[in-house]
């Protein structure tokens, strides 16, 4: 079955073994129809007691605490906590810069991000959530420059959703430029709030544009996670030979001696990274910087561990 082949192309048993003890929990109360692991925005229905409140006409008489009525002669209604599933949408940047594979990395940034999507989707589906994927760049699925996304897998919690995601991601090619605006606006519209949105991108040349977009997502009461995917070469520019650098998205080129410009480059890069991180922090969004030479499962396991501990607090 080709779908299964594509899953094993992205997910390996070692990766699954690393993250299998973790769960992807939303930080916010979410809307959901089916039972799940996330706190529901609608109280009642569940079995875990949350609090008492004064009875108001219209409350379900089944929830009135009759023992308290007998003791104190006052009406109290028991409120229970409900747990439901969440819609989890992955926004994957498939622009040309994501196709870079450095000298120290085993795969391209796009492949690395796709693996991260597959790992998180596996966790979400396992806990009953619905997942979807939007892979975006300025080139449409037919190779023409359109506003349509290169891959758009609708939200679903079916058992074969992971295979569908994997198969679509396997077909992805890094090309064109990133259209973060379209993708994030689409996500905000499609989920309608109280969902989980995971953005995976290198955010190159988008530090100014991305901040308001992330704020907007967060304002719609969505839980958002940003995975900033970078290559080691991008961080320290390790080349020694005189090199003609050609921009993967614009096609412009510059010839230079890397040892001579390395210091300036690393300073600029550090500023850029801090800018993105600050934007996420201001929007109260989880920011996770990853380098494609690192093991994706280990990085995500550490992040989920940290997230679970902060959630329980």
């Amino acid at each position, binding site marked *: 079955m080709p779908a299964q082949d594509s899953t094993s192309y992205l997910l390996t048993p070692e990766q699954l073994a690393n993250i299998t003890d973790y769960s992807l929990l939303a930080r916010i109360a979410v809307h959901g129809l089916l039972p799940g692991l996330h706190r529901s925005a609608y109280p009642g229905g569940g079995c875990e007691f949350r609090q008492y409140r004064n009875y108001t006409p219209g409350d379900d008489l089944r929830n009135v605490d009759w023992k308290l009525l007998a003791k104190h002669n006052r009406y109290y209604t028991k409120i229970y906590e409900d747990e439901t599933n969440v819609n989890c949408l992955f926004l994957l940047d498939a622009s040309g810069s994501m196709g*870079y594979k450095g000298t120290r990395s085993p795969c391209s940034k796009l492949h690395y991000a796709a693996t991260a999507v597959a790992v998180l989707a596996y966790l979400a589906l396992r806990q009953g959530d619905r997942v979807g994927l939007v892979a975006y760049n300025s080139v449409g699925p037919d190779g023409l420059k359109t506003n349509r996304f290169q891959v758009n897998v609708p939200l679903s919690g079916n058992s074969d959703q992971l295979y569908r995601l994997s198969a679509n991601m396997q077909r992805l090619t890094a090309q064109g430029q990133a259209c973060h605006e379209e993708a994030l606006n689409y996500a905000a519209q499609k989920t309608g709030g109280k969902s989980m949105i995971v953005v995976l991108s290198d955010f190159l040349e988008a530090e100014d544009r991305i901040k308001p977009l992330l704020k907007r997502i967060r304002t719609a009461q969505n839980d958002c996670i940003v995975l900033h995917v970078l290559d080691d*070469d991008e961080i320290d*520019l390790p080349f020694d030979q005189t090199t003609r650098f050609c921009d*993967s998205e614009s096609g412009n080129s510059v010839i230079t001696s890397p040892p*001579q410009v390395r210091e300036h480059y690393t300073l600029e890069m550090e500023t850029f990274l801090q800018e993105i991180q600050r934007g996420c922090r201001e929007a109260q969004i989880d920011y996770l910087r990853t380098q494609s030479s690192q093991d994706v499962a280990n990085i995500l396991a550490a992040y989920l561990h940290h997230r679970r501990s902060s959630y329980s607090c």
Partner: protein
Amino acid sequence: MLNFVYPAFLWAGAALTVPLVLHLLRRPVSVHLVFPSIRFIRKGPLPHTGRRRLQDVLLLLLRLLMLAAVILAFAQPEWQSSGAKDAAATAEEEKQPAGGVFYVDASASMSGRDSFRKATDNINRILEQHAGAPFGLVVYGKEERVKVPPTAKHEKIRNALRNTSPSLFAGKHAAGLRQAVELLPGNGSPRLYIVSDFQQTDWQLQDPPELPPRAKLQFIDVFPESPSNAGIVRVSSTALPEGGLQLMAEVLNYGDQSTSRQIRLDVGRTVVEKKVELSPHERKRVNLTSREKLPSKGKVRLNDDDAYTPDDTYAAWLGQAPPIRILAVVPFNKEPSKENELFFVRKAFSVRNKYDPYQYRVEPVSAELFFSTDLSDYQGIVLMGAGGYLRDRGFKKIGNFLNNGGVVFSTPGRAATQQLLKLRRQKLLDIQHNGRQNVSVGGDAVYINQLNDDTVLADAFPDPHDTDLFLFPIRRYLRLAPSDEIDTLLKAGENMPILMSRSFKAGGKFYLSAVGFTPEWSDWPLSSSFLPVLRETFAPDRLKRYSPVKRINCGAQVALPQEADRSKKSGSEFLDTSEPAVEVVAEQPYEINVPRSESVLRQQSRIRLRKELSPQEGTSANVRGQAVQDVHREAAADTAALWPYCAMAAALLILGEMFFLTLGSANGGRQT
């Protein structure tokens, strides 16, 4: 003038293009890299690459020079200064032509198509040019054929050359040259003209004579112009069981061109022919089959002419192989019962079938007379319990026999203990004797139950259970403990060795049986496995002293065996090897043929020859005015080998390259 010993190495100069091409292909260019974003990469100043390029060019030059020096070293350049003498001396010399001595090679290879005629023509031409000058002549093959002291009467030399011809033997030029050097006049600057085809196999000079300091050396090369030669190297024959003969002739093409020849067996009225195609330097075996009964002596020929005809004919022995002679040493007086053993052994060796071309002859001798027996004509000895009665002198004789490739088979007798003691003392066999075991009285007989697959008997008994080797009872045997150097072929009972062997140098072998070959000891001689055991140990291909036909070269000195000597047919103690023929002496056939080393078409280096004959390098052999076209160019030479300088230059250039590379890496390190 610059000359090369191995000019073919200069073709390797084409390799000089390799570093050049690599240099052009690998010149430094900027690397092209598609990078995610060039937003933070500013256009920086490029490193100064001019010095690097200059360094690369210097490195390329160094490498080219190094390669050229290595190639030149292999080609072995030599500087030959012609005209070392001043003009006056040269003019003087030309006015008064000095005499000399002609040394003419008369080895078998000179009897080719036109070699000797060419030699004669060249000498005649030189004589015409130097009329009145005294010249001597030595014509030498294996031995002196003609010797004329220096004389101004050149007709004597011409006549001597007319009346002589090359021999059929290989040349021994060191001795011949010594005679020629002795004839050189003591005054003036005499010349030694060496007229030869300079065949490599002949001109490997052992202890060559040294020329007088004023003498000059001149080579006259009469090597065939289009050398092609094929010859018959060897012929062997096998009698067919239904009558007739199968002949295997080994033919070798010595030349560099392919050739097609007709091989022909011509005996009496029988003629068998076959065509053979030979690639350059190919050795091919050709089978010729005759259904008719043929005489025992015949000649196999290669038709058509080539550069060297004597090797086209091979005198071959077509008859039966001589018998393998085995001496049976029996203690007739001390142990008369051993005559039974002789009976069984004789019977086993006398059996013949029509497919077996070999026959054995067992000749008994009493143990007391063994010391006076000449073992040179025997290939094997069977000691039938006689070892204990031989003296040390007899065992020394056996030791020599074994070290010359002989095979000895010993069985035990009453004096087995003494025999083993003497064998140990003479360091022939180290076996401990733990006494004799007689099982017929006290218990059941033992049987052979183990055959060692790594020994000679493995061929005779591929599956011993299908034979009666393990079935006959052994009623009496020696309990022996052999040392590690001794192989055990057969074992009986509980790890009890029955047949052992030890190998000696030159293929000799000593077999020792722990069981006698009489019915008192065992039923072995009555079993059908007795014959294969005995005959396998004396198989003809394992007898290094046995050769069905002895192949010798013309001119070799072969002493006749004593029996032939006693007959005094020829009146000489040596075999007549002057011409190719087949001789049978005392049942031993001899194939006498022209030495095949003469067939080789490869020349000895005259530069090396000159160094051997004239090490002082002072023989300015100037050949101005000579009319001899075949004289090799290198005759005029004061040679100085230049290859050591080339090798030294290569070594220096390697050091230079290493220095440059170190310098380059140090600069590169500073840049980064």
